[in-house]
């Protein structure tokens, strides 16, 4: 396949960026999208140019490192997968592919296609945990039976990989899907009840402080989320927030 890539190049956080054209050939359908980027980078290095910087690590859809806005969509055209799981057979010979970083005020660009998502970490630090000591002085695991449906639902929320596609998909750059997935996981489990009030208030406060936008229920986040995190999480967090505000 021959392709025409249009890629966002930006030297560092302070510089202005721009789109640059890179024609590329010899791409096979079996390659993953990031392997296609490897081929491009190898070419650039041979020519003595700077390779394109992007985040990646596991290359199997679980670490949440890879990002990329591909032809306007976070993680590209396919559904329920990350960029590293996207394969070139989804494209045709002669296609133009526009590749940009995830865009949001709370995700500043570090270089080229790499963004700073530490705002997500800070939301988790504000309350995304259960305050239990790790010294092992806990009750036996089976002393707390949990309804299988609740456990399964908590697991569904817990599968969020923290990639930020929900934010990149949202016209308001809201982080509600991400934040609500964590709040939901704990809200669905008995272990999470004790600190429920503080948790939701603190995490939402941090989310706002980081400069994420408001949720206007457009649902774009759910469509683009590679892990299928559902909008029900946002509804649940809203309920939790409402009752916490009454208490708090």
């Amino acid at each position, binding site marked *: 396949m021959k392709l025409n890539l249009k890629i966002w190049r930006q030297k560092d956080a302070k510089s202005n960026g721009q789109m640059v054209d890179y024609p590329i050939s010899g791409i096979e359908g079996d390659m993953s999208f990031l392997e296609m980027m490897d*081929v491009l980078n190898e070419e650039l290095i041979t020519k003595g140019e700077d390779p394109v910087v992007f985040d990646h690590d596991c290359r199997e859809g679980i670490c949440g490192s890879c990002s990329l806005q591909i032809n306007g969509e976070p993680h590209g055209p396919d559904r329920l997968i990350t960029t590293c799981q996207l394969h070139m057979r989804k494209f045709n010979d002669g296609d133009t592919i526009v590749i940009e970083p995830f865009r949001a005020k709370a995700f500043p660009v570090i270089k080229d296609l790499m963004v700073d998502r530490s705002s997500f970490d800070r939301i988790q*630090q504000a309350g995304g945990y259960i305050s239990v000591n*790790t010294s092992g002085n806990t009750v036996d*695991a089976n002393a707390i039976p949990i309804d299988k449906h609740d456990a399964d639902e*908590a697991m569904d929320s817990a599968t969020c990989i923290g990639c930020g596609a929900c934010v990149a998909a949202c016209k308001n750059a809201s982080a509600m899907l991400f934040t609500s997935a964590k709040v939901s996981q704990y809200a669905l489990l008995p272990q999470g009840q004790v600190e429920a009030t503080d948790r939701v208030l603190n995490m939402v406060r941090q989310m706002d402080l980081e400069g994420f936008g408001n949720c206007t229920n457009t649902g774009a986040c759910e469509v683009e989320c590679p892990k299928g995190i559902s909008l029900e999480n946002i509804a649940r967090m809203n309920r939790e927030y409402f009752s916490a505000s009454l208490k708090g």
Partner: protein
Amino acid sequence: MGILDSKIPSGPLADKWTNHKNHIDLVNPANKRNIDIIVVGTGLAGGSAAATLAELGYNVKTFCYQDSPRRAHSIAAQGGINAAKNYQGDGDSNYRLFYDTVKGGDYRSREANVYRLAEVSGNIIDQCVAQGVPFAREYGGLLDNRSFGGVLVSRTFYAKGQTGQQLLLGAYSAMNRQINRGKILPFNRHEMMDLVKVDGKARGIIARNLVTGEIERHSAHAVVLATGGYGNVFFLSTNAMGSNVMAAWRAHRRGAFFSNPCFTQIHPTCIPVSGDHQSKLTLMSESLRNDGRIWVPKRIEDAQAIREGKLKPTQLKEEDRDYYLERRYPAFGNLVPRDVASRAAKERCDAGFGVNKTGEAVYLDFASAIMRYGKEKALTSGLKNPDDKTLRELGEKVVEAKYGNLFQMYEKIVDENPYKTPMMIYPAVHYTMGGLWVDYNLQTTIPGCYAAGEANFSDHGANRLGASALMQGLADGYFVLPYTIGDYLSNDIRTGKIATDSPEFDAAEQEVRDRIAKLMGGSGTHSVDHYHKKLGKIMWNKCGMSRNAKDLQEAIDEISNLRADFWANVRIPGSAEGMNQELEKAGRVADFLELGELFAKDALTRNESCGGHFREEYQTPEGEALRDDENFKFVSAWEYKGEPKDAVLHKEDLVYDNIELKTRSYK
């Protein structure tokens, strides 16, 4: 005892850990506030250690190369975590888990360490549930279990196919709690470039800020390395792209002995290599071998026709297929341990029976499982005389419920529907049992430098059992290190802050800067990946699933030449200031080029076959591994002396007081 003192406590096996803990020196809470600990790596081992040490009151700094601790390679573990809870009432016990692990490791691990691992395993599950880890449950609300290869009980806890993710997010949440309290200071997108020793003790690290390129000095009273395994020395593996040996190797160069580098696990069920552009390999969980049957064509002409696309596997009649694992190992069949299954696949492919374009793939076939489940389903739903099509549809639903996510992953990568045609699989590098030598306290041969998780050599001998790495990482981090490190630090309560302006820090920083300058100064002929791929080919062809003296000697020479070529001619664009991903890769590959040679040397020295280490010269007439307990019942521990070829071998003899040494047999 020689130079290696494993510090195994005396007394009966089952009492060693408790007695040891009772006699350990403690640091009082007020003094802990004056003690700093550096934890490099925030996977299961490092994340859990950092959280616990901070909770105890120490000041902890964590380092990882990713942008967040949540992205460590541990996140990718699929199948599960073992624990001797005996919730299923199937006769499990600490002793049985201990026994299975020592036997599974082909009698090359330390009894006392493994027993301790079994002893604390149950507590890991309690801890994780208390943290809100959503393990799979039964309808009664209690925890569910699975079985894994090499054992006869159900002791594996899991969270769908994402157990590592959930455990890591649990450890990450415990870290977040301590970050919020100010007890952990996280340094993400930072890479440890060297270990700093002052008066013979580990007292800090030199790190590079990967965003700004700045070289930083960090001091502490002790340094914990939890930096994962080195499977990427093979270039292609199931490890994350960034997994590397740099931190462990830098410590090795500063005096930490490196153990059993040649003990590598090659996992039998991975998606085969599709071409030269391939950047990594994807695992298909071991659980698939419960229902999938492994085969290749019986006749070489059929294999040829399949490779040329003239014949489809589904067209081949039952009697024309060779279910070689069932044939060779009737007792265990498709569920033989990983090392055995991998070698058998290689044997068939080398003999010309491979089934994909490259000739390096075998089938993992679910057709009979689909029909079997279909029949069961038809019976239980009262269907009379269903036709084959209905049976197949019913069966496919059952298989989807069990393995749906894996089938989907396979289809995305290979573009074939595994419900309709058998999966193609081939062995791939997956895990490294070798690592930094540690004593019972997890301390390396450098005082104050500890190693935890996959980075140490401790518990898995020559072959790791499935679902045991997660257990070991969390055991080390939550339950072992926090005790044993206190014993060492109790001598440091009056030391005060470690200065970073000492000559030792000056020298270490200068060495790091010189090394970077040297890398940047290559003649610029080839990219880093060029060298990494070449190294990977040598490792795979000559130090892979089966090894012999001639190949290993060649590998040593070739790697040594490649290393010289790399330093002279590597091309790294850009500059050392600011973000430079090629420079990061170059630093890692430089260390792989040294480790690879030591790996081959270790394999050449070990004149026996055991676990994942198979030497062609040492096998039975039927082609099974031939262990030599008389001469090789030891842990190799290599001391750095400049070039890898000059490394000096020390041996820790393994003593078996509680287990009788036997030949593993799966026939």
